[in-house]
């Protein structure tokens, strides 16, 4: 412990220099921790959007549904989808199963027709587990969206929710009557008249221009779907066990393909990769800055204490103990820097979140979001660990230099 005490005293000897070095470490900690909190917010937002946007935690799909051209018809479907959903609802790990039909066709308003991508959902279950209904808040503010409401649970109701872009293309608004045209499972052309009951802003312009939502009953009439469903969205009671449940369900449901949400949410995966690349590079640069700054401080400290090290060596201190002394100095700088960095991070995070700053809309999306930097202890721990490792590495070279000093020369050093 004598070496630790000596190291601490040495740091306190050059207070101004130590303070400057600590500031560099604190700045590094702050930048990396805030970036980590921001990333966590983004990943959380994107995963919520993916899960609650319709994927659920698991998707049960017909085999080969994701291979080749993604079918937007019941050609590739789970033929007994409703029965399968009922069976899955008995599983204790399952909170709910939401069957869906995905289809495409033409939407007509008088002489105008526009191609659409449709999703049929259970009007009663959907708003309880998915964010589809929340998308109507934005839709209600769009032109023609006033009075928007969710689909009626009545199986006899023939209603549709339109993406804001799709409504604009057709000149449709809430209350308009339109005709949905598509092909049945047998390939026959079919049409159903529907009333527009709401508009939806789905966050992505491309989706708003093509997307519509109807009830499963409406789709059943249009497509002659019977029990067939394109996919089942499974909501789990314990989302953290998604990977384990995926494996279990895949065994339980031969003849289907069970996929976790994160394998299907390509936007989430791409953003995650991009963020890791950007912030990884930023982190590397920051670690390098900390490494150079602290190595410089410790090296200067060694050069100023050559004679002192000579005396310590003359007294019998082993070269490796001098190395250890410098390692202690690095350790104290790292510990103190990380502690101060953590305090600064928590303060700044609280301040920034209290400002309720609205971030600009990310590319391809139609609205911004409020900055809410997450509290992520794991990130703080990893940053502190990384900085500590950096400090220990930065103390290595000055330590080796000190350990290699020739005693007689060090004692002569002025």
């Amino acid at each position, binding site marked *: 412990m004598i070496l630790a005490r000596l190291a601490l005293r040495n740091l306190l000897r050059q207070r101004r220099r130590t303070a400057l070095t600590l500031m560099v470490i604190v700045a590094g900690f702050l930048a990396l921790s805030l970036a980590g909190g921001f990333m966590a917010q983004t990943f959380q937002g994107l995963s919520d959007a993916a899960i609650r946007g319709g994927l659920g935690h698991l998707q049960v799909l017909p085999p080969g549904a994701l291979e080749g051209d993604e079918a937007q018809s019941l050609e590739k479907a789970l033929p007994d989808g409703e029965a399968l959903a009922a069976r899955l609802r008995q599983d204790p790990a399952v909170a709910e199963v939401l069957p869906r039909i995905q289809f495409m066709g033409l939407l007509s308003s008088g002489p105008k027709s526009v191609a659409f991508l449709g999703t049929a959902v259970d009007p009663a279950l959907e708003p309880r587990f998915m964010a589809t209904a929340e998308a109507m808040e934005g839709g209600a503010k769009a032109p023609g969206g006033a009075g928007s409401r969710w689909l009626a649970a009545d199986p006899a109701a023939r209603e549709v929710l339109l993406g804001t872009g799709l409504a604009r293309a057709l000149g449709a608004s809430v209350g308009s009557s339109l005709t949905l045209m598509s092909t049945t499972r047998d390939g026959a052309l079919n049409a159903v008249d529907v009333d527009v009951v709401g508009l939806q802003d789905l966050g992505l312009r491309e989706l708003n221009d093509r997307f519509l939502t109807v009830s499963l009953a409406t789709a059943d009439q249009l497509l002659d779907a019977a029990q067939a469903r394109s996919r089942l969205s499974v909501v789990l009671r314990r989302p953290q066990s998604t990977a384990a449940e995926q494996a279990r369900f895949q065994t339980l449901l031969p003849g289907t393909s069970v996929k976790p949400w994160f394998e299907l949410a390509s936007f989430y995966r791409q953003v995650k990769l991009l963020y890791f690349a950007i912030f990884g590079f930023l982190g590397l640069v920051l670690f390098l800055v900390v490494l150079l700054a602290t190595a410089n401080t410790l090296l200067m400290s060694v050069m100023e204490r050559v004679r002192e090290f000579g005396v310590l060596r003359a*007294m019998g201190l082993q070269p490796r103990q001098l190395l250890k002394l410098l390692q202690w100095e690095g350790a104290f700088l790292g510990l103190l820097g990380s502690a101060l960095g953590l305090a600064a991070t928590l303060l700044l995070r609280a301040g920034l979140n209290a400002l309720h700053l609205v971030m600009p809309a990310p590319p391809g999306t139609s609205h911004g979001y409020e900055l809410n930097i997450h509290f992520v202890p794991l990130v703080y721990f990893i940053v502190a660990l990384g900085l500590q490792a950096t400090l220990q590495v930065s103390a290595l070279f000055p330590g080796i230099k000190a350990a290699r000093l020739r005693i007689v020369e060090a004692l002569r050093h002025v």
Partner: protein
Amino acid sequence: MLQLERITRAYELGGERAGVFGVTLEVPKGCLAVLAGPSGSGKTTLLQLAGLLDVPDEGEVRLGGEAVSGLAEQARCDLRLRRLGFVFQAFNLVPVLSALENVMLPLQLQGVAEGEARTRAEAALERVGLSDRRHHRPGQLSGGQQQRAAIARALAPDPLLVLADEPTASLDHAHGGPLMDLMVELAQERGVTFLVASHDPAVIARAHRVFRLADGRLVGEERT
């Protein structure tokens, strides 16, 4: 206690060959021996070789009858820590430690428990008359007090041999004399062996044995 046998250590200094050449001498236990001679005569080089701070090109250093100059670095460090004490011209106390902590330092490096190290360090400071200044840092002590603390630091681990390089050179006569008296007392009372490099007549006058060096060679030996 200390025997140097045909010690040679040569190096280049300003284009000329310097060092010590074929020096043989012996310092018995409890003796205060002085290496005397003008600047450049090889006093400090010989002291460093005796103190295992440097390795001779030729010859052997024996400590308590044991050949030690050929030992590995780690063993030499261990010997310096447990068997040798050093006093330097510029005192060379660790500036961030108090006088007491400086004296405790070699003991703690030996692995002596803090409580015991404190007791022994306080006794060493008491012996050199510095008890009342034990919590002062080197910067708060006079030159004489710093050198007393340095002697206490050298003595605290109970070394076989204390090596002192010009211990009075940075002190005025009023402080240098009492310091030498202290070393003579320690040699006589506690049997501590001192090897001192000095050209100070006041130091030489108090020595039990004087080895005179010139141009790196032993040119005379006087016993009192």
